[in-house]
C-alpha cells in the first residue's frame, strides 16, 4: 500500500519530465520540407569541385549575397543534368520559369540580427564550416524545423532542447555570438550585431 502511494508522486514526476523533455520539443517544432532537394556534396569537393564562394559570394561592397539566385543555377542547369525527378522538377518549375526557389534557410537569423559575413571571413578569418558545419558536404537537405512560437529555425537554438552545444556550429544564439566576441573584441556594443 505504501509502495503504491509513493508511486503516485514518482509517476507524476516522470510524467512531468516526459512532457518537458520529450513531448514539448516535438510539439514546439514543426517540420517543413524544402521546396526542392539540393545536393551540396555533388557541387563541391569531389563532385563538381566548386567552392563555397562560387555560389555564396561576397559582393564588391562586402555584402554577402546569400543563396544564389535562380539565374546562377541556370548557368549550368538550363537543361536537367541527370535524370532524377527532383532535377527535372527543379528545372521545369523554377529554372525554365525563371522563378526563385523559396529556400528555407537553416541559418537565417531574424531581421533584427545583423551578421556581416565579410567581417567574419576577411577580418576574423573564419572558415565557412566554423558556423555552418558540414552543410557544404551534405548530400541532401534535411527538413526545416521551425519553432512554432518564435518562428526561428531550430538551427538557431541548436539540436539539444536543453541548449547544450555539442559543436561550434550547433546553435547560433546571441550568447554564441557573445562568447566569441567577448574573447576577441574589447569594445562590444549591442548595435554591433543588431540593426
Amino acid at each position, binding site marked *: 500500500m505504501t509502495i503504491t502511494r509513493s508511486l503516485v508522486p514518482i509517476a507524476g514526476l516522470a510524467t512531468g*519530465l516526459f512532457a518537458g523533455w520529450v513531448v514539448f520539443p516535438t510539439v514546439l517544432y514543426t517540420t517543413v520540407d524544402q521546396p526542392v532537394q539540393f545536393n551540396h556534396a555533388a557541387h563541391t569537393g569531389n563532385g563538381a569541385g566548386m567552392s563555397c564562394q562560387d555560389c555564396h559570394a561576397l559582393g564588391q561592397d562586402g555584402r554577402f549575397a546569400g543563396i544564389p539566385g535562380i539565374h546562377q543555377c541556370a548557368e549550368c542547369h538550363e537543361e536537367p543534368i541527370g535524370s532524377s525527378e527532383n532535377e527535372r522538377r527543379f528545372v521545369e518549375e523554377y529554372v525554365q520559369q525563371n522563378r526563385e526557389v523559396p529556400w528555407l534557410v537553416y541559418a537565417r537569423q*531574424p531581421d533584427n540580427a545583423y551578421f556581416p559575413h565579410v567581417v567574419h571571413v576577411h577580418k576574423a578569418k573564419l572558415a565557412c564550416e566554423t558556423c555552418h558545419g558540414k552543410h557544404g558536404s551534405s548530400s541532401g537537405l534535411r527538413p526545416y524545423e521551425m519553432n512554432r512560437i518564435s518562428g526561428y529555425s531550430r538551427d538557431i537554438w541548436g539540436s539539444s532542447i536543453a541548449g547544450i552545444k555539442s559543436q561550434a556550429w550547433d546553435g547560433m544564439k546571441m550568447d554564441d555570438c557573445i562568447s566569441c566576441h567577448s574573447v576577441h573584441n574589447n569594445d562590444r556594443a549591442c548595435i554591433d550585431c543588431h540593426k
Partner: protein
Amino acid sequence: MQVTRRGLLKFAGASAAGILFSPLPWKLLDDIAIWTQTGPWIPKVPRGPLTTAFSTCALCPGGCAVEARCAGGIPYAMRAAVRHTAGRGALCPVGMTGHHLAYHPLRLSGASVIRRTSDQVETDSLSTQEAFDRILGALNTRPLATGVAVIDQRPGRTLSGQFRAFLAQQSPGYYIVPDDDRLRMHEAFSNACGKDGLSLGFDIERTATLLTIGTPVFDGWTRPARTAALLDRRHDARNPLKLIHADPRRTRTSVLADQWLPIAPGSETALVLGLTNIVMRDHPSLAARYVADLHTSDRRGMLDVLSLFTPGIVAKRTGIPVDTLEKVGSALAHRKPSMVIAGGDAAGPIDRDTHQAVAALNILLGSYGTPGGLLHRDELPMPATKMAAISTIGDVPDGSISLLIIDGEEMTCSTCWESIESKLSPDGHLVVSTSPFLTQLSAHADIVLPSPAPYETAAEVVGDPTDTVVSLSISTPLLPRKQGSVEPIELLNHLSGESVAMQELLKQRIALVHARGRGMIAGYQDGSGHRLSEFASADEIWSAFIEGAVWTSPPLHETPAHSYTLLGHSPNIVDRWAARAEGEPNGNGADGQVILLPTASSDAASCGRISPLMTKIYQESEVRPTRAHLVLHPDTGRRCGVDDGDQAVVQTESGSRHVTIRFSASLMPGVAQLSIGPDPNVSGKKSEFAGSDVFRNTLSRSPMAGVTAIVRRA
C-alpha cells in the same frame, strides 16, 4: 487503485515539479519573449541584391536628379544624385518619398466610375475598354455647339502638345492650363513690352536685392538646390543677397527672409505702386532712363496714378512704416541687380493688376532682360503641329463643354472645381480624369482612368518654370507598372483613332532639341557636361536620358524692348490701381471676425497626393501646418473667444471647417492662417471632399488678400 483527491493533487504537484526540471517553462518563456520581437504582425524587411538606379523626380517640374537605392530591384530610398547638375545633391521631403506613391492606399486600381453622394465619393470599377468607349461615345454624340476641353495640369510636355493637336481638330476644342502666376506675369510683361509669347525666368542666383511679394522662395517654390544657392548668396562677400519678403502671412519664407514686410492683407498692389513712386521720386535718373528716354507711351497716366501712392498713404494702407518703405525703395534702386517677384504660391495666383504693377516696377528698375533679373528662357520645341491655343478656364464660355479631360494631379490650387462647373454643358457632359489617385479635381470627374504612379512609366520632366535655364529629362521607370493603369496617350489614341507611342513622341521631341543644337547634356552620375554635337542621334540622347541625364539650355540674351507701356493695355487699369490706395477693412477679431489667409507649401505636396510617410512632417511634428490647424495671434484669438488648443469652427461665406486653434504671437493681429495643403489626417475620408472648402470662389483673389471669416468655439 482508488483515485483520491489527495492522490490527484500529489500527482499534479509532482508533475509540475518534473516540468520545472525540464526545459519547457524556460524555453517557453524565452520563445514567447522572442515572439514579441518577431511576431507575424511585424513587417519583414525585403531581401535581395542591393543596387542603385538613377532617375529624375517627376513630382513637380523641378526635375531633381535622384539616386534610388533598391533591394531586389525595388527602390526603398531616394536621395539626391550629388554630382548631378539638376538637383545638385538636394531633394525636398516630397521627392524623397516619391517612390512611396505607388503604394498609396488611395491609389486607383483601374478605370472607375465615380459616384457622388452628398458627402461621399465612391468608385465602381469598369474595364478600360468600356471607359474608352464611353468617352468616345460622349465625344461623338455631343450636343451641337458644345466643345471638348482638356485641363492640362502640367503644360509644356510632349503630351500637352498632343492634347493641343487633338483639340485643334475639334470644334471647338479648348486647351486649358492653370491660370497661375507664371501665366499672369507673362501676360503683364507681354502687355508692357508689346510682345507676345514671352517666357521669362528669374535669375535669382545673381540678384542682389530680391523683393518677393508673397513668393514662398523657401517653401517649395523652386528646386531645393536653388534655395541652397540663395542661402549661399547671402554669404557672398562681394554682393550678398538681401531678401525682402512682403506677405501678411508668417511663413517659412517670412521667417528666413532678411526682412519681412508684414503688409496688411490685400495691400500688395499699394506696396508695389508705393515703392514705384519712391523709386521714381528719389531716383529721377532711373525714371528718366526707363520712362522718358524709352518713349513710354503712357508716362502721364503712370505719374498721375503714382501720385496717389505717396509713402504716407502706402504706409497707412500696408501698415509698413514710411522709413521702412523708403529703405526698401532705396535698396531696390541702389543694390543692383534687383528684382521683384510676385506670386507663385500654391494657394492661388495674385491678381492681374498687381502683376502689371510688378512688371512696371521691374522694368523701371532695369531688371527685365538683365542678369540678376528676368531673363528670356529658351523654348522647348514641340513635335506637334497645328495646336489649339492656350487658354485658361476663364476664357471658356459658360455651358460650352460636353467632354472634359482633366490630366494629371493638380499642382496648384488655382483651378477650383467651382470655376469649371459653370463651363460644363447643361445638356449633358462627361468629365474624365487621368490621375493615379482621387484628388480635389479628379474626385469631381465621372470617369477616372488611373495613370501610372511616379516611377512606373517613363515620364517627361520639363524643368522648373521659374528657372532661367530650361531643361528636359526623363523620369526613368524604377517600378513595374501597375495592372489597370492607363497612360493618357492611350486615351488620346483611342479618341483620335491614331496609334502613337509616347516613347516615340518623346524621341521626336528630343530629335528636335538635337537638331537645334543648343544646350548641354549632363551625365547622370558625375554631372559631366557634353555638347549636343557629341551625340550622334536622338536615340543616343534617349539612352542617356534613361540613365538619368538632363538637357539644359542657358537663358537667351535678347535685348529688352525699346518702348514700354507700363500701364499695359488693360483698360481702366489706372482707375483700378487708384482704388487700391484705399484700405479694406481688417479683421480685428471683434465678433469673431478675422481675415482668413490660405497657406500652402508650393512643392508637389500642395494639392496632390503625397507619401503616407509625410505624416512625419504634417501630423507627427509641427514642420508643416495641416488643414486641421487655424493659427492666430493670441490677442485675436481671445477676442474671438477661443484659446490655444481649442476646437473651433471657422466660417466664410462659402463654407465652414472644424479646426484646432493654435496661438502664435508672431502672427499679424487680425488675421488667421489656414493651410490648404494636404492633411494626411483626413486623406481618403469622407471629410476630405466634403464641405471643406472655406476658400471656395475666393482663390481667384490674391491669397494675400484673404477672405473674411468668423471664428467661434466649436
